[in-house]
């Protein structure tokens, strides 16, 4: 059998790998500037307005499993083609360590179903080491990124309110939706104990930002991706307009294996496998941008070996794959007796919470851990799906029935049906999302023994939380109980204790993994410079979360978008100057 790599004929200015937040932004900015682009995506094409792909406004009974998560981890209607495990694309974990890796393979990547929580990092978040002596500072500060946050806000749209809270920078906010009933209860509870609760900041259009996208119509289903583009998905909001410039060739179902280089170690393009014909192809470009998500981009670099760079491309520092870090997460549920027997009305609202709690203890040095967390809330009269009504026996023995008598938990028949109705909308919950301190040993590397079905060596993860994160989770759990009791609720289940690390989720579970190709001013200790450009390879950039030095308690995507825009501006300038 002959092995042949098919050369795609046009030579591009820029080849972008991955079409999620980072790749979509790079494509949009560079296409607008007139560069000829190849956008290479491992998954299929996707458009939420395509009726064949649309899941928005489906009813649970349209699915034979009623929306259960058998096929897609967040349920049948969730818009992620992927999950924690992909057929034929394994990954491994070093013994005694944990990491769960979520991948979504489709145009737009994980931005088709993400939570739309769109937070800016604050001034402190770029310089935490100055404050607590741990981890490392970013080589840039808030002022470097602010102009780009501003531009992202205006281009994409995000609602919120100007609060003037230190380290929670305000932005160009569309007006927020009014709080739901359970959110008012939460606010009542938190205000009694001095915990702030403010309108959430989500990239959902309560008003329009241009003529191509309609305003949100409050179906609560952003996770299904919006068919009128009323929320931010990279596919519809960035890639579509980039394609309209006529400057972008989109290659879908194209799995990039490695970056190809010339004898001196400069990038000359990428090598990919077409998932449809399983043949190998090569795309040539003057510049390569990796934006395949933090771990995937690290994997591509580590697999791009040659005699010039035997441990992978852009890796003279040996830092590629290291400092991998995710947000922490821990959660609790509660039952609210005062929210029983509720009057029915359409409470869907936007896809996510209308209020949240930003970190409020930056100045408290006595906590025993040094980084903060924010709190996300849920509740309400949502659309039932598989799992709805489970474990009624844990609820219906807790409070007196309408007749004033407390029944035996469990039961059946009309009484049970009435109970389901009574308790509908009385369950609420909250989850902390916190900052972890990046560790060099927490990393992904190439598994020396395994390849995926395309023959590409796979990743092996090493990841352990430190005491910092465990203590932070303990604090979350104490806070949750305090909030629950102050809002008149009853906490459900056992309080997670030491044995379960206070409910601290496995690394990877919060799906904010970043840091694997971090930026820095010292080429010995970092992979990228402060413009996401590889120290070792000037015509190679990484524009996903890989560049993060640390990630605050703020979800990463707004910062990925701002940095990708900033790096694209820099790249364009350098090309014009002839430096690349």
């Amino acid at each position, binding site marked *: 059998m002959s092995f042949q790599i098919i050369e795609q004929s046009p030579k591009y200015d820029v080849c972008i790998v991955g079409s999620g937040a980072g790749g979509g932004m790079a494509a949009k900015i560079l296409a607008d500037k007139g560069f000829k682009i190849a956008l290479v995506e491992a998954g299929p094409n996707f458009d939420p307005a395509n009726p064949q792909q649309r899941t928005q406004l489906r009813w649970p009974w349209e699915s034979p499993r009623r929306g259960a998560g058998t096929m897609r981890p967040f349920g049948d209607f969730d818009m992620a083609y992927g999950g924690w495990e992909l057929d034929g694309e394994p990954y491994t974990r070093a013994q005694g360590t944990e990491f769960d890796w979520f991948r979504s393979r489709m145009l737009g990547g994980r931005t088709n179903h993400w939570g739309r929580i769109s937070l800016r990092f604050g001034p402190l978040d770029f310089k935490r080491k100055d404050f607590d002596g741990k981890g490392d500072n970013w080589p840039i500060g808030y002022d470097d990124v602010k102009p780009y946050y501003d531009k992202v806000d205006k281009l994409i749209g995000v609602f919120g309110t100007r609060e003037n809270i230190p380290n929670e920078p305000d932005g160009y906010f569309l007006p927020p939706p009014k709080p739901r009933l359970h959110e008012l209860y939460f606010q009542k509870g938190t205000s009694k104990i001095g915990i702030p609760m403010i309108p959430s900041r989500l990239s959902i259009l309560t*008003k329009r930002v241009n003529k191509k996208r309609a305003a949100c119509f409050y179906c609560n289903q952003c996770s299904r991706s919006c068919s009128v583009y009323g929320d931010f998905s990279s596919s519809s909001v960035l890639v579509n307009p980039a394609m309209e410039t006529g400057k972008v060739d989109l290659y879908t179902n194209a799995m990039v294996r490695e970056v190809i280089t010339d004898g001196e170690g400069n990038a000359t393009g990428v090598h990919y496998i077409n998932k449809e014909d399983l043949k190998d192809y090569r795309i040539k470009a003057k510049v390569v941008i990796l934006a395949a998500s933090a771990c995937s981009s690290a994997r591509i670099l580590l697999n791009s070996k040659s005699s010039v760079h035997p441990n992978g491309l852009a890796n003279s520092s040996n830092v590629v794959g290291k400092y991998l870090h995710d947000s922490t997460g821990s959660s609790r549920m509660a039952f609210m007796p*005062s929210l029983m027997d509720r009057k029915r009305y359409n409470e869907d609202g936007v896809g996510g919470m209308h209020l949240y709690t930003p970190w409020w203890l930056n100045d408290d040095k006595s906590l025993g851990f040094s980084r903060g967390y924010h709190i996300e809330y849920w509740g309400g009269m949502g659309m039932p799906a598989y799992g709805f009504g489970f474990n009624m026996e844990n609820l219906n023995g807790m409070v007196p029935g309408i007749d004033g008598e407390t029944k035996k938990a469990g039961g059946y028949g009309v009484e049970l049906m009435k109970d389901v109705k009574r308790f509908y909308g009385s369950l609420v919950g909250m989850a902390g999302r916190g900052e972890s301190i990046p560790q060099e040993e927490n990393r992904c590397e190439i598994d020396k023994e395994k390849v995926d079905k395309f023959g590409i060596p796979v990743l092996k993860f090493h990841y352990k939380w430190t005491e910092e994160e465990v203590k932070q989770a303990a604090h979350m759990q104490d806070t949750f109980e305090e909030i629950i009791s102050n809002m008149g609720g009853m906490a459900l289940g056992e309080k997670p204790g030491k044995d379960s690390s206070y409910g601290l989720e496995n690394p990877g579970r919060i799906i904010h993994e970043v840091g694997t190709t971090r930026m820095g001013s010292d080429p010995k200790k970092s992979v990228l410079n402060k413009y996401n450009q590889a120290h070792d390879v000037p015509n190679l950039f990484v524009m996903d979360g890989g560049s993060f030095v640390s990630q605050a308690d703020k979800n990463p995507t707004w910062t990925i978008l701002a940095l990708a825009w900033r790096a694209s501006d820099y790249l364009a300038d350098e090309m014009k100057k002839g430096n690349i």
Partner: protein
Amino acid sequence: MDRRESLRTLLIGGAGTSLLLSCRLDEDTDVSKLTDIKEREFDYGRTPAEEARDEALLEQDFYTDEEMKTIIVLSDIIMPGDGSKPASEAGVPEFIEFITKDIPSHQTPMRGGLRWLKNESYKRYEKDFVDLSKEQQIAIIEDIAYPEDVKPEFTQGAQFFSRMRNLVTTGYFTSKEGVEYLGYMGNKPNVWDGVPADVLQKHGMKYDEKILSRSIKPEERNDIEDWEGYEI
């Protein structure tokens, strides 16, 4: 203008009323008809691989006819209808058949549980569960329906019944009939303008001035945001 009409006006925004999915958002912002799209059963935006798996599962049978009969009887004991259809007429047994194949961890406990029930029925009445009188069936169910109050000899039965209760309840309340019975009002184009006033009042809540002045005003939702004069 009644509430329905005014909602429609808010959703339409600009001119025109044609179906939105033609995708000319620049000319037509009417999203009110998005729900009118109809497709064949179980066609809900799956990938080809997902569709193939669903089809394969739908073609197999997990339960025997005899087991299915018991599931139907149990479904109607658990959700008999309350001015609404009983579970057996709301697609619950079909859902249980599918989900048992879809989530294999249900298989052994369900099959074993059904056997346990059959055995218990024979022990007490020398007949299969489905052939018992209503009173006899209920006598057994009463012994296994309250997990905090179960005699030691019935703990396995109670385990089974809890699983069955979960599946029937979830199957019922995710069916069209169940969603109607529950009174869920969403999953359609809407304009959220806060909690209704009477509900706020009943719960002793109110929106303060700050919230009211900053929140989105429904009549402005179709405007394009103008940042003139906005400062941060």
